[in-house]
């Protein structure tokens, strides 16, 4: 293994790292002075000095976006299959596909960043976003527990900073702090779990672990190792009861950060969680069938899924802030996605991946609209959305598509996502053993319709406007962001009409 070859195979990651450094340099050399001027006047009011800061931000965003596009190109140039250092870095159709998906999600998150005024140092912020992207790519592209943990930490540490990045908003700081404390504690659990697994199997490669566990008998230590490993991922995907950080982080963090946490981070976590449980822990699969529960990771995930679906949907009913609402709905959606992993097999895994991908796309769009409304009205409560339709029909229509897709209404992407998930769960176990979970999920999505429609109602019907917002005034600026959001809405619709363009790709990529 020559270093030249390593460089070739890890070229996408390398490109993103280099881009991050470049963006950081640009931000430091061009934007610093102007930005500090803004700080000194201390406030969101724009002054004359900020035009150079805007230019610097635009330059940074452009370089970052360019880097991401080149990285996608580099992923496409990779060989179909390769394994480095016993699984530390693997390249398969699956990893390549999800690297592209993650980078694309980050790309759209970047487009949201371009008009975010609250970020004082766009260069630094974008650099951290790009480092988090490297974390995503490592997470997706590894089949080795140690490397996965490093990916998790790189991603996590970047996200903590991103959540706390709005230095003028105490909520942002609170979000970052809570996220950090919660995250580091669950990391500790995960690390402990990994070390126990290592102790039992003597290896950290997933395939090797699987081979070792197949011969080992069920023992208490193994149970502790498995459950502890799962806890760390439950935190990442915000499964109840490990979701407590999510509402604060979604609400308090800057909008692009929240979008990143809800989209890219989630997709990568599900990919790697699926690989760990379906490949590494395959011998301790167990069974979550209603009448024949067998110890293993699948009943654990099933219980997490059930609890997440119930709690997420019910608590979301009581929210009056859209971002908090999205956070609790994210808990519920994490629960739905877990059903696919519980079902297992090629079918279940691909259904879960399809679902989480379409969900992530939808949420990036939804957060885009939230950011849009926030800039326009100064808040993101439900009441801030009232009358959005008359101000910007395009944004209102896009948001309606996102909400209906999340609720699982055909012909939008969310419908087919749920359809694949539930049908794979029903087919997975003999005698429809997972019917209880599917029934619960159906009940949950039924409940969820209420709060999603609530958002739509505020947008289209409700005219109780705060007096200071002129509702007749159409919003005309932010063309780039608007077109990005409508592009995402079109994608959500397209994936609903022709789900096969993504589903077939995912299914083909899973061996």
């Amino acid at each position, binding site marked *: 293994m020559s270093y030249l070859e390593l460089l070739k195979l890890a070229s996408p990651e390398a490109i993103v790292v280099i881009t991050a450094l470049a963006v950081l340099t640009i931000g430091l050399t061009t934007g610093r002075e102007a930005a500090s001027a803004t700080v000194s006047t201390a406030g969101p009011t724009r002054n004359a000095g900020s035009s150079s800061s805007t230019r610097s931000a635009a330059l940074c965003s452009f370089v970052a976006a360019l880097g991401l596009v080149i990285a996608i190109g580099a992923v496409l140039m990779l060989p179909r299959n390769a394994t480095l250092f016993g699984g530390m870095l693997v390249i398969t159709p699956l990893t390549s596909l999800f690297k592209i998906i993650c980078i694309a999600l980050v790309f759209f998150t970047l487009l949201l960043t371009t008009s975010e005024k609250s970020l004082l140092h766009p260069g630094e912020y974008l650099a951290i976003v790009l480092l988090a992207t490297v974390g995503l790519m490592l997470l997706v592209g590894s089949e080795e527990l140690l490397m996965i943990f490093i990916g998790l930490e790189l991603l996590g540490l970047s996200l903590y900073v991103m959540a706390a990045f709005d230095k003028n908003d*105490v*909520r942002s*700081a*609170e979000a970052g*702090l*809570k996220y950090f*404390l*919660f995250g580091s*504690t*669950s990391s500790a*659990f995960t690390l402990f779990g990994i070390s126990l697994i290592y102790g039992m199997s003597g290896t950290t490669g997933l395939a090797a672990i699987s081979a070792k566990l197949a011969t080992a008998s*069920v023992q*208490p230590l193994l*149970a*502790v190792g*498995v*459950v*502890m490993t*799962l*806890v760390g991922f*439950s*935190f990442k995907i915000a499964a109840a*009861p*490990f979701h*407590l*950080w999510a*509402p*604060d982080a979604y609400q*308090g963090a800057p909008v692009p950060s929240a979008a990143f946490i809800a989209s890219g981070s989630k997709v990568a976590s599900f990919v790697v969680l699926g690989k760990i449980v379906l490949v590494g822990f395959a011998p301790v699969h*167990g069974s979550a069938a209603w009448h024949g*529960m*067998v*110890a*293993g990771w699948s*009943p*654990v995930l099933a*219980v*997490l899924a059930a609890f997440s679906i119930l*709690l997420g949907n*019910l*608590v979301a*009913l*009581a929210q009056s802030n859209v971002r908090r609402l999205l956070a609790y709905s994210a808990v519920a959606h994490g629960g739905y996605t877990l059903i696919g992993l519980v079902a297992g097999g090629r*079918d279940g895994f691909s259904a879960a991946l399809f679902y989480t991908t379409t969900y992530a796309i939808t949420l990036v769009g939804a957060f885009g609209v939230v950011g849009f409304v926030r800039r326009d009205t100064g808040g993101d409560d439900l009441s801030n959305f009232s009358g959005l339709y008359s101000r910007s029909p395009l944004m209102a229509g896009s948001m309606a598509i996102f909400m209906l897709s999340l609720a699982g209404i055909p012909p939008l992407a969310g419908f*087919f996502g749920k*359809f*694949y998930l539930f*049908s*794979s769960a029903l*087919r997975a176990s003999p005698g429809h053993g997972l019917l209880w979970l599917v029934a619960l999920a159906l009940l949950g999505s039924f*409940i969820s319709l209420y709060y999603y429609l609530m958002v739509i109602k505020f947008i289209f019907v409700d005219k109780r406007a705060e007096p200071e917002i002129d509702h007749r005034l159409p919003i005309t600026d932010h063309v780039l962001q608007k077109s990005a959001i409508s592009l995402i809405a079109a994608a959500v619709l397209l994936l609903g009409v*022709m*789900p*096969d363009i993504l*589903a*077939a790709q995912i*299914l083909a990529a899973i061996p």
Partner: protein
Amino acid sequence: MLSVSKGMSRWVMHYLCLIPAVPFAASLIILSLPNARRGSAAALAVTGQVAALALSVLAFLPTLQTNGFRAVQNFTWFAFGDNALRIGFVLDPLAAAMALMISLVGLCIFVFSIGYMAEDKNFVRFFAYLSFFSGAMLGVVIANSLLLLFIFWELVGLASYLLIGFWIERPSAAAAAKKAFITTRIGDMGFFLGILWLYNRSGTLLFYDSGKGCLESAGLAMLGASATFIALLIFFGAVGKSGQFPLHVWLPDAMEGPTPVSALIHAATMVAAGVFLLARVYPLFSLGAVNGVTSSLTVVVWIGVTTALMAALIAIAQADIKRILAYSTVSQLGLMMVSLGVGGVAAGIMHLLAHGFFKALLFLGSGSVIHGCHGEQDIRNMGGLRRFMPVTFVTYAIGMMALSGFPLLFSGGWTKEEILHDIGHWPPSRAPYYLMLAGVVLTALYMTRQIIYVFLGKPRAVAEHAHESARVMTMPLIVLALGAILLSVVLTPAWPWLYAYLSGESVHFEIARLIQPMLFVSLVLVSAGIGVGFWMYRKAGMQDGDRPSEIDPLEYAQPALFRFLANKMWVDELYAHTVIAFSWMAARLSDWLDRYFWDGLVRGFGAIGQLFATFTTGVDERGINAGADETTVAARGLGRLMSAAHSGQIQVYLGVIAIGMLALLLLYAWLA
């Protein structure tokens, strides 16, 4: 040459989906136009239709090269598990001929509408709907999957709803739109059940799939005895869409729409869909036929006979110019159904194509009359219009002769003779043959009556101020009239090109076959019908003045019969007192149950849910979060927050992790 044609047919298959896509796209663009852009809207719609026509011609060319040409383009819509739902497009003589007729007749109607709707304030919206309708119908004919066909079929239904109720401010238009939509939906329910059943048995909804489709031998073999029921369920959908008894009631009411819409619905598109559907899935009907007869086809024959006769009788006693045409459409569709039922698929489709031309002509002609008479639709208030509207009169007379089936000159005559010939050779019974002969007489009779009332005699009431319509309206009339005559060239028994084209045979010219016994039979019958008509209505509308004409001659002779027919045989009333009354009762009962029983239950469950939600929110928000939130809202600075975080709240968070993990561990241990 061969390779060139192969390349061409591949090219055509690749772009076949554009035939419906172009009008759809035009419709979408028009919808986004502001209301004042009338010119652009009409231009876009017509351009879209011209493009669809051009594409249809291109698609028509390869089908000419080989007998029984058929090409399909299938693709996977989505996959679930090991199953994949596949849809596709098909090009065969049936699809090509229908697409050509729809786009050509549609184009004439589009152009006519520019003049007819010139005064309407929702001109732009009207053209958007027209394009949408045309796209949906073109989609129906080239669909190679029953599911795709059903989707377009429903889009046709939606478009018809929008167009019939176009003048939404009129309560009668809104009611007619609803009636059309609901009545056809009843048929569609049967259709959909048939689709599900078919999918259950054969596992595919593709018509042609290189031997594996549901209309090909392997697929048909899997159906067995269920084929009869599947066929009948599908036929029920066709009954709704094509206005067959007992679901014909919506069609005459649909006259509430603007007249070009009536032309589009009753000539080229919507009602044709049912007959087309039957022709498309004909193998399902004829599966296991003995001597060309199956039980499902027998049902089709008798439904068709009932419809054809009933509608022809009702038409005699109607006074609204468009309603007469509407009932004549119902009657002609019945005739086509009979033709399909006795095995004359090609004859039925030929009549459908010819009917598309002359019925569009008649409807547009009646539109021209209504336009000229300033909105008057009652034929008793017209009269003598031949002097004021010569072009309309001549073209209308051509349409009338074609509809009556006058031999030799007019397309309708040839196709009708072909159908009657087929019906005459139906093994089980001769009755349909004689009943349909009676139908021919009746058709000639009521059309003569209409011509006399509208164009002959002396002008009455509004007719004195009538004027000929503008060029943009008469030109389509002339084109369609020429079509109604010239189409004969490919229809005669001497050179039955269209027949051979549709049934995939080769054709050669033989003048001797021109004269058939059927020719004389129909000559006698049509002349009899016209003669009786002139004799019966010889005095109608001959007196002067503004008064409406005196009592109808038939009413004078047979008042009871006339009332029975004028009231459409009281089918509407029958439905009102049975089906509709029953649904009202059921609705009231459900309403009561909803209000007092289910609502109570739902409220109960809602309360439980709310309680739980409040509880969990309480735990989340107040129990765990309150302290932190308090400080945030107060926003007294980061330091204060840090201390608050350290003062216990976050620890609870972290405690939850430990507790959660322990709970999961216990679960694991308990299961082990």
